[in-house]
């Protein structure tokens, strides 16, 4: 299936591009022990597109996401978000970037145990000292189905509910890009389904740009675009066809 690798990973018009990564390399260690987590990756993401990133364990998915989100710095290459080169930014600017333009959902430990669900959702706004847009907040909370859980603490919520709070938190700032790294890795299949559906709905209903690392072929099949990594290289980039095709693809990569 090497043939599915497109000649160019450039897509869309420049003004439509929200994330641009060029020649990304990320090496760990030195000499014999050197690990090339990413070995020359060029990739661009468009506004309003739902992208799934797949690949075997250790292929560099998390590393790529961290670099795209400015959480990690590449060994070489540049990342632009909304036209701004972020590889040269200092900690303060990166913090501001994350605060204003990015949303995150991690695999676990998304929430502060001392805050209620609603407070957790509003956390990014509180950090930024912004007054929440009540209508939007209510809409988001309603959409993730947590209206009756607002005052609960994370310890009083199920894993799936906790992840839905995390999604709501990521959406509440209307970020330019929402990153999620295996957001369902810790959940049963029903809860996984709920969370992934939410992420897709964010794209469908709000036009939210979503980049999600996932191992669920079903979820990937419903996205706009599927990227696959192997050994730090981009080996597949195309709209998904069907769940079965995705499973086939994964088999060839493994």
């Amino acid at each position: 299936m090497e043939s599915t690798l497109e000649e160019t990973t450039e897509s869309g018009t420049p003004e439509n591009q929200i994330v641009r990564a060029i020649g990304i390399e990320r090496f760990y260690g030195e000499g014999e022990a050197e690990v090339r987590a990413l070995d020359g990756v060029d990739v661009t993401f468009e506004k309003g597109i739902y992208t799934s990133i797949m690949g075997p364990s250790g292929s560099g998915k998390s590393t790529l996401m961290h670099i795209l989100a400015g959480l990690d710095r590449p060994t070489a290459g540049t990342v632009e978000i909304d036209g701004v080169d972020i590889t040269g930014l200092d900690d303060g600017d990166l913090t501001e970037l994350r605060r204003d333009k990015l949303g995150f959902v991690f695999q676990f430990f998304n929430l502060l145990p001392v805050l209620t669900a609603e407070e957790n959702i509003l956390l990014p706004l509180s950090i930024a000292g912004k007054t929440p847009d009540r209508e939007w907040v209510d809409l988001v909370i309603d959409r993730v189905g947590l209206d009756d859980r607002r005052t609960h603490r994370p310890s009083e919520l199920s894993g799936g509910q906790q992840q839905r709070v995390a999604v709501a938190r990521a959406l509440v700032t209307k970020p330019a890009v929402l990153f999620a790294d295996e957001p369902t890795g810790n959940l049963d299949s029903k809860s996984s389904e709920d969370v992934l559906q939410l992420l897709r709905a964010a794209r469908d209903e709000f036009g939210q740009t979503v980049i999600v690392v996932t191992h669920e072929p079903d979820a990937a099949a419903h996205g706009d675009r599927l990227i696959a990594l192997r050994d730090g290289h981009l080996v597949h980039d195309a709209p998904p066809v069907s769940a079965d095709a995705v499973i086939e693809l994964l088999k060839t990569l493994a």
Partner: protein
Amino acid sequence: MLSLNLKNLWARKWRSAMTAIAVILGIALVAGTYVLTDTTTQAFDEIFVKSLEGTDVAITAKSEVDQEDGSTPSLPAKYLERVRRVSGVELAAGTVFTPGAILDSEGDSTGGGFSPQFISSTLPEELESLDYVEGTVPSGAHQASLDKAAAERSDLGLGDSISLVGTGEAQPFRLVGLTELGGASFGGTSIAQVTLPVAQQLAGKQGEFDQISVSASPAVSPEELRDRISEVLPKSVRVETGTENAERNADDIREGLSFLTIALLAFAGIALFVGSFVIFNVFSITVAQRTREFGMLRTLGASRRQILRTVLFESFVVGLLGSVAGIFVGLGLAQGLSTILKAVGAELPANSLVVLPRTIIVSLLIGVCITLISSLIPALRSTRVPPIAALSETIAVGGRNRVLLRSILSALLTVVGLALIAEVLINGSSGGSAALRMGAGAICVLVAISIFSPQLVRPAASAVGAPLERAGGLTGQLARENSQRNPSRTAVTAAALMIGLALVSFVTVFASGLSSSVDKVIEQNFKGEIVLQSSGGFLDFPSNAVTVASGVDGVQAASGQRFGMAAVDGENTSVSSIQPATAAEVVTFDWNQGSDQNLTLLEDDQAIISEGLADSQGVGPGDRIAVQSQRGAEREFEVTAVVAPGTLDLTGELIVTQETIESFFGFDADSSALVKTAPGADVDQVQDRIKDKLEKPFPTVDVLNQQELKDTQQDQINTLLYMIYVLLALAVVVSLVGIVVTLILSIHERTRELGMLRAVGMSRRQIRRMVRYEAVITAVLGAGAGLIIGVLFAFLLGIPLEEDGFALSYPIPTLIVILILTALAGVVAAIYPARKASRLDVLEAISYE
């Protein structure tokens, strides 16, 4: 398991090192105290041994009543002839050794404020212990020598003029010799030598000696000679061999120093007590964080005993290393303490630092035991971790919160503590055992509060955090939530600070009460506008000064007062004197039975007594009371009036005439004098005129107006207060270290949370502020509780003192400043943890397992 234990310890070396600080500081004070007092004792031993070199037998007068200044009565000179006639006496000579003042040509003292100065007489060469390292032995009426250290301190050399003050006017002398006592250090003390007749005249001891020194002929042993001499002298005279005399003097010093030892050890105890809270906290947190590890060990077959040993081993090593480090720090501290004492004018003699095996053993024992005891509860808790804990996702923190048990235990301790305190207060007993019971009571109450405090953390932190939340918004809220997240952790951290702050506020309130009470007595009972006292206020001064002052233009009356100790019914009783002719004009007493007229009418065989003495002896006006003097003589006085309490120690319990206190009790110098100015006279001008008149003949007398007197009293109280502050600072520092460690451990625990916060846009500055606020909340909780408890204790202790004229006053601004300073200390304590938290690598934090 040992290698695993060691690896574990190494992995937590920073945490362990911080924990050790809790032991180090307390042990340093323990070791430092011993080193300081041992060094001082050793130096005094050397002084006494060296000063009696060549003296086989020493003859002194017995003191039937111990005086507060340690002075003893003198011997009649006629005994010398009797001693010389005893067979086996090679040489016998009388000497005078009397407290006095040694001033340089500018009139400045050659010693520090509290350091005694002595005038002594020269002895025949065979008996003389001082070595003349420069110049010659004084031989004329105007020659004197001085110890070399004092001369160097005051930049004096041979040929310079100095003046000596005994019981009369200052007299000029030329410095002809510099002395040393075989290389022994005197500390801040200085000694001047003059010829015997000059010394007797300076001390007002014509025809008297303070000691007769005797050397034995070669054929007679000192003991034999001592027995022979005793036979020819009356029982009131003490005859000792040189060695016995040196030992007795050294014992007296040891006894005097034991107060210092106990006081310093008490502060060490406080620091260690506070340290035990810190140790408890660190081990509790560590055990909680290692729950999964312990569970894993249990699944692998480790027994409870092995788990217990793992934790206790760690605490043993921490305690041992902390104590060893503490001993070394203690050596430095001993130096530091003697520097502080020197700074306040009480330099102690010292040669090289003395480290006895006892110092090391006691320090190690205390340090290790305290660490083990403090970590016992967390250690026992670790044994209750079930193997299943290895598999559980969430880490169970700490033990169960047994509210009922806590409440009962703390209620019980409070009752016991309050009972102990109340018992002392009601029975009004004083002395060491009372202080011990009082301290035990206070510790009970403090521990009770600490045990119960987790229950209070939630509401209290909400209250303290409210302004921070208003100021800091989210960071304030998170800080408050974090401090409430683990109430017992916050409670123990705050409680450690609470103890130090309780003591700080207690002494602050007490000292302020003392100052204002003194002020009140001065305002209400001093009719005289001007006061004479010796510079520094601790020594007596020549009584002629009052006579001179009364002759000054514009003075209506000047009246002196003397103080000393006598005995009534075998009990030490303070005695003071008045000058009947003038007393009523300068002072007013609060009378129980009698009036100020009784002052004027007091005769030499009469006495006015305090209400306390009247009660204990069951006597009143018209009755007779038998009093024993220091020399052992007994005499009956007719009681004419009874003074009400309520004027602090303005008078002794027994008030007699000036004539009586000199002739019968043997006190010939004034402690203070009051001057009443003539109507219409300008007080300032009169004060200046008195100063002019007294300056030359009586350079050691200060002429103060009432305000200046209040100020000097205040200064003295403050000096003591600051010394206590310095010593308490140790305990406060330990509790601040507690805040630092607890914060670092909590941050470590919350690594992922912090990473997540950073990922969703929290800036480093916000993270720092959050940590800082948490520290401030903890600090203010501790300080607030401490202030309340300290003020309460001061209030309780002030009640029984009220009838002595002690009235509490509450220095609110000072207390507020203390609270603010503690909050700032919290900010300082948070600097490092906040930095650490803000520097966390976001990526590492979110992928942190």
